[in-house]
């Protein structure tokens, strides 16, 4: 027999799926801010925040929403090396594949971009940009100077990455958008909306304000951590529902189960 918690568990599988995007006050603000920045004559836009604050899903959302209005491309995973990155970029710019045994002449690529100025406006959404080397970032900046290619660079916010940002981009014209962890209210809306999207009304209703408080305390409002915790909570509920139904309260999620999930994920320790 299928447990009612199985569907709930799957709601919180961590993925960058546009169908899973939840409109929250904070995410709507960030989206509008990014869209507004892209309309400005800026060369590069920095989107940064701690891991799990929703940078990737925001970029996906932007690409999905604006793909019919703008020439917008999303580079979700960083290229293994410079050669691969420029092959990818070459294809975006020229709409042609480069033979695998050839290399892109960077100077020729910059010239090509300069010629595109005023004709095309290409937006490249560069996720996980902290993975790129400083040299590559410098070349990206030179390409953006052509004003034909605009880069939205998404960075993890750590002390080192802040340093990279300072060293390579601070002196350029930048729009900086920071994504932060969710507030308790945002997290409540996020969890409830995600469950309601899958018609799991009863389960959404079983998560009380007290539970949210505890979840927020453990995850500090981080969406990825929230997904992980909720997934584990429903995984435990699913187990009890199938094997020991007396241990699960269908009306509300017990603190015990949340603490067990937190123990499993290492938020709390024995």
């Amino acid at each position: 027999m299928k447990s009612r918690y199985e569907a709930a568990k799957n709601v919180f599988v961590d993925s960058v799926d546009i169908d899973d995007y939840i409109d929250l006050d904070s995410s709507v603000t960030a989206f509008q801010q990014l869209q507004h920045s892209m309309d400005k004559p800026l060369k590069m836009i920095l989107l940064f925040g701690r891991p799990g604050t929703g940078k990737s899903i925001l970029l996906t959302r932007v690409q999905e929403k604006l793909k019919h209005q703008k020439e917008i491309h999303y580079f979700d995973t960083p290229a293994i090396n410079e050669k691969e990155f420029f092959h990818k970029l070459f294809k975006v710019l020229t709409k042609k594949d480069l033979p695998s045994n050839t290399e892109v002449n960077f100077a020729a690529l910059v010239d090509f971009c300069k010629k595109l100025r005023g004709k095309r406006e290409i937006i490249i959404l560069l996720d996980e940009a902290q993975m790129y080397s400083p040299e590559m970032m410098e070349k990206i900046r030179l390409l953006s100077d052509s004003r034909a290619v605009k880069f939205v660079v998404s960075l993890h916010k750590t002390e080192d990455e802040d340093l990279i940002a300072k060293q390579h981009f601070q002196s350029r014209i930048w729009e900086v958008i920071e994504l932060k962890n969710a507030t308790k209210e945002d997290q409540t809306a996020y969890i409830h909306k995600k469950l309601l999207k899958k018609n799991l009304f009863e389960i959404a209703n079983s998560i009380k304000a007290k539970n949210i408080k505890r979840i927020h305390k453990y995850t500090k409002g981080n969406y990825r951590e929230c997904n992980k915790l909720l997934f584990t909570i429903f995984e435990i509920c699913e187990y009890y529902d199938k094997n020991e139904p007396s241990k699960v309260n269908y009306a509300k999620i017990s603190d015990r189960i949340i603490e067990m999930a937190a123990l499993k994920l290492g938020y709390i320790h024995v």
Partner: protein
Amino acid sequence: MYDIKQLEDQWKQYKKKKLKPWYIGTGILVVLTLLLIFFQTNLKINFDALKTYLDTSKEIQPLKNNDKSEDTVVLNKMEVKETVLLDDALEKLEVKDNIIEMAEKVVKGHDNILVDIPILDDTNEHHDEDEIETRKKVHIEIIDSTSVSGYKDVEKRFFESHDVDDALFLAKSYYKNGNYEKAEYWALETNKLDDGHEESLLIFVKSKVKLGHKNEALSILNSYVKQSDSQEAKKLLYRIENDKL
């Protein structure tokens, strides 16, 4: 989810650890409460002692006032002793000489002392002997019972006044302080003045026992029991016979 049992065990451990400070806190609270109750009880005792002291002071105060009201009386010249007479415990004592000029002289107020003084009749210059014998006793000053000079003062006064109370006081005090020879002497002195005085006889007997004259003590006490049928004496007899003194 295959590790649920292990997770449950971990949770139980976590819960214990989490509740530990609460248990400790509760324990500390209980201990503090008990200590508080303990100290409050002690304080109550001290308050009781203080209350007793204050009550005694209140008793003294009106007497002092009476003394003052008599200050203007002209009396015949006589000498009286001031003494402190305390409770039966006789733990503390003050003896102080006080000369009251009783002849054609104003009697000054006394300083916090229980005084044996005659009741004065300020309306009649002729004082009857009976009136003079009526006395007041006022406590005034307290010193330690080990004060040798205190006892000497009482003894000195006794030789002048031959007061039964003084003799009994000395007998009881010396007995209490373990000076059984003197206790025996003063008990005898008391008995000489009042041969029916049971308390002095009992102190005399007890002192005899303490000095090792048990047979003599028993002989005296047996005679007294036969004569008086006193319960106190019987109790003492029982205690002496059973070496429980």
